[in-house]
């Protein structure tokens, strides 16, 4: 079976040993959410708001889990204070797998303002991020993002824009 642009993120999550995921859905994350739901090794907690999800991940990390959050970039806007005053203040690692809406290919005008703000918000918070453009590098990047988040004790964001999800994977098969 040839992997697609979602499968390689999932493989990266598995390589990283991520076993606790909170989420607010996005159409682009639909398949990834299904893969996580079907995985008995990952505890999946859907949340009502991303801000709440960061608090849950902080608690889960203290309880011994390796956390990630799946969300749209709009969720970043909902979470500015918790990122600064909880995750950064107390030095909690977490990777944010973000569907970056409002980028090329967007059809919903409401997604545009937060799209433009996304990297600026991350810069303002002094949060490292990486725009993953090529699905061939996703698996490796997700793993490396967790490793860096863990040793630096800081949140790290991975941004997957709209065109990312439509790109193919050239080399990897399982």
């Amino acid at each position, binding site marked *: 079976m040839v992997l697609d642009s979602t499968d390689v993120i999932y493989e990266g999550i598995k390589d990283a040993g991520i076993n606790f995921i909170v989420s607010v859905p996005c159409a682009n994350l639909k398949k990834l959410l299904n893969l996580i739901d079907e995985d008995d090794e990952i505890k999946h907690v859907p949340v*009502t708001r991303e801000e*709440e999800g960061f608090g849950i991940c902080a*608690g889960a990390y203290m*309880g011994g889990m390796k956390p990630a959050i799946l969300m749209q970039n709009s969720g970043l806007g909902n979470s500015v204070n918790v990122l600064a005053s909880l995750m950064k203040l107390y030095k909690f690692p977490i990777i944010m797998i973000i569907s970056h809406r409002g980028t090329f290919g967007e059809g919903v005008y409401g997604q545009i303002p937060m799209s433009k703000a996304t990297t600026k918000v991350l810069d303002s918070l002094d949060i490292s991020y990486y725009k993953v453009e090529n699905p061939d590098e996703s698996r490796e990047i997700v793993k490396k993002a967790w490793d860096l988040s863990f040793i630096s004790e800081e949140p790290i964001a991975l941004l997957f824009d709209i065109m990312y999800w439509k790109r193919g994977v050239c080399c990897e098969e399982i």
Partner: protein
Amino acid sequence: MKRFDVIKKIVETLDDESFIVSNIGFPSRELFGIKDRKTTFYMSGSMGMATPIGLGLSLALEENDDDRKVVVIDGDGSLLMNFGELVTVYAQNPRNLIIALIDNEAYGSTGSQETYSSKINLSDIANSIGFKEVFFVDARKSVEDIDMSNYVDRNGPIFVHIKVNPGNSDAPIIDLSPSKIKNRFMKQI
């Protein structure tokens, strides 16, 4: 009776094994002044995050077959700020989580401005969400009815709604760094 009296009674009647996650501002400071425990996570800076942190910890302990309990000392203003968290707690159904909601109908740490909990009943809301274990304690005149040992042996999630009068004590500033609070807490896991 005020928040301070209730927190004191909670700590006196709670076993040392259980974890506490305490709310921003005076609740954490009062708790720290009454009894500092390595198994307490003093949450600062993120209003409305005490219960989510407690939920995440509860779920992690359950995943790792750790039977210890998690007690969140939350406030009415804090709960109102992130009401959705109560729905997530209900849906995730952690057996080991006790939410001790100290309701003084005020934003106590900012000058006791009134919250909307004077207009609504927070235990009715917990009941309507579906919580099976909801307890109401009126502690405005006495804290005699507060005994955490009544709750730690029950299957959660447990919602204990404790009504008090507004007002803060002369609580100290917590002289532990956030990293220290987190790291010593994690060593107890």
